[in-house]
């Protein structure tokens, strides 16, 4: 079934997801949303990796493993980020990045 979909479709999807992630990362002020945007970016990269692996080197597994690594790292990163966010919330009672500006001039 997946063989019926051409490569371009995957790439378009990945690009859309990537820029949605970038857009979210740049415009959102809520830390949780920013974190979700980062996840979107990572996942778009995963899609890219898998699609290229499947279409260019169908008999190899490097791309697949690589995306597994990315997922793992993303999970760890999410854990750390959420811990930081909770701490920020405790300290400032907000997770809006614009209100967290103690070090600004």
């Amino acid at each position, binding site marked *: 079934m997946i063989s019926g979909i051409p490569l371009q479709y995957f790439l378009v999807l990945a690009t859309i997801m990537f820029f949605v992630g970038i857009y979210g990362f740049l*415009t959102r002020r809520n830390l949780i949303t920013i974190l979700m945007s980062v996840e979107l970016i990572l996942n778009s990269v995963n899609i890219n990796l898998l699609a290229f692996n499947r279409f260019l080197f169908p008999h190899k597994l490097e791309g697949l493993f690589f995306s597994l690594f990315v997922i793992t790292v993303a999970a760890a990163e999410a854990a750390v980020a959420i811990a930081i966010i909770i701490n920020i919330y405790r300290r400032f009672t907000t997770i809006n990045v614009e209100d967290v*500006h103690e070090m*600004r001039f």
Partner: protein
Amino acid sequence: MINYSYTVWIPLIPFIVFLVLGLTGHKLKAKLSGLIGTGGLGLVTLLSYYTAFRYFFAGGHTEGAFEKIEAFKVTWLQFTDKLHIDLGVLLDPISVMMLVVISTVSFMVHIYSIGYMHGEKGYERFFAFLSLFTFSMLGLVLANNIFQMYIFWELVGVSSYLLIGFYYTKPSAVSASKKAFIVTRFADMGFLIGILILSFITGTFDFVTLTDPNGTAITQGAGIGFLGLSVMTWSMIFVYMGGMGKSAMMPFHIWLPDAMEGPTPVSALIHAATMVVAGVYLVARMFPIYAISAPVALGVVAWVGAISSLFAAIIACTQTDIKRVLAYSTLSQIGYMMLALGVSGYGGHEGLGYMASMFHLFTHAMFKALLFLGAGAIIHAVHSNYMTEMGGLRKYLPVTHITFLIACLTIAGVPPFSGFWSKDEILVAAFHHNKILFAIEYIVAGLTAFYMFRLYFNVFWGKETHYHHTPHEAPAVMTVPLMILAFGSVFAGFIPFNELVTSDGIPFETEIEWIVAIPSVLIGLVGISIAWIMYKKETAIPDRIASTFKLGYKWAYNKFYFDELYLFVTKKIIFRFISLPIAWFDRHVVDGTMNLIAEITQQTSYRIRGFQSGQLQKYAFVFVSGVIGLAVLVIFLWK
């Protein structure tokens, strides 16, 4: 060869005393600190006398000539193989003689100060400064190279500054100390320039090398000319400028009368007997160079000395503050010494002026210290500096009276007191060299006798003054130094200087030349008689004379307006035409440039500080835009 290395302790002992008193003085009892200072000085005096005895009578000379002995020497700063600054002790006739002078006067002044400064605030500070001064002065005379001499020269200036400003709550004392420091410092600039030129052309600082009459250093630089004079002459004139500042020669004399604001023992020690003759000592130290390769500079020395002595003597006739009269008299006598050096030649009987100058330095130190200490005793008794408020004191202060009279007779050149012998040698030297200089000094001899006896009669005779409380004689601790110095003043003239202190170290014969001696005694007696007539009893003659020569009197009374001239030159000319433009340049151009740079930086940073918002998202936006921009560029430019 006798070992003289112990002489290094002569300057070091006062330094140790200074440290002890300076660091722990406030914890000591006042009396104890005075005793420590005096005891240290007593030790120095003993060592100095011992050194002098050994040097002059037991082994300083070989084959009839006194040698220069380097008793101690360490290299302090090594610039090149040849050029290095040493610290050392050089013994030769003049430095050993100065050791005796300094330690004697300083010791007397220490003893005297125990009584004079009794109960003053800052008693231990006073003794600490006295020790510092003695250390510096001894280091100056013992220096074995000109740079060490310069270092101690400045130290002497500093301690003089500290002691003039001893009563630092008194504005006049503060301004006097500043004046003394600035004027001498300005002159020392010339000294430093002279040293630099001298060491540049000769490549050495060392006195023994510099002043060796057969050495190469002395003839170097003689040929190279600048403005018609050889470089050596210029350097010697610059060196002499330092001596003029320290010895208060015209036109740098203005600080000395004001320096009388310090305590009287200080005036006796620093501003009469020791520090102010440092200039004479400097010229004497460099004398072979002056005499052999810079005769023009020696002429400058002679004329500056002669003019200073004449002017100071005229001013001294009109002053009423007794310490100022003595200050101008000091100027005049130092002028004598300078003149004597200036008319001297090098070697043998030619060096008569040199010997006479050192002789007069020695006797002058004794009788001038005596005069100042006597003045101190008078001021102590009357609580005033002005002779108009004194009179008839001979009944109240018998010891001071007799010793003061001895000192006055000595300075007036009445035989057989010591002043006669030394002054006579100077006059003889001047007589054989230049008749005009001789005439000036001859007049000054008469003036000296006149103003000293004007002072004497005004203070001890004259009108009967009513005192608030009866003046009483000073305590023994003050009168004993007076008696010792009076003894020195009477008998110092019999020391055979012509056999001990000569320009080349070789003794020569002198005899009294009656053609000079008799007139000089006569004019001294004339001066005394005029003073007798005018001031023995209160008469109207002085006022009549003053009103007859109104203009001259006014000029002399106002010290020939030298202070006003200096003020005019500094305030009206230097401040207005040099300092003001420089200040403007500094404020507007130098500061302006700096302010402009700062302003530009600040403005720029205000503009761009928005970039550094601290918001990660903005950074990320810039970053992503950059990446996209680059990507677009690469894609379109790839083809």
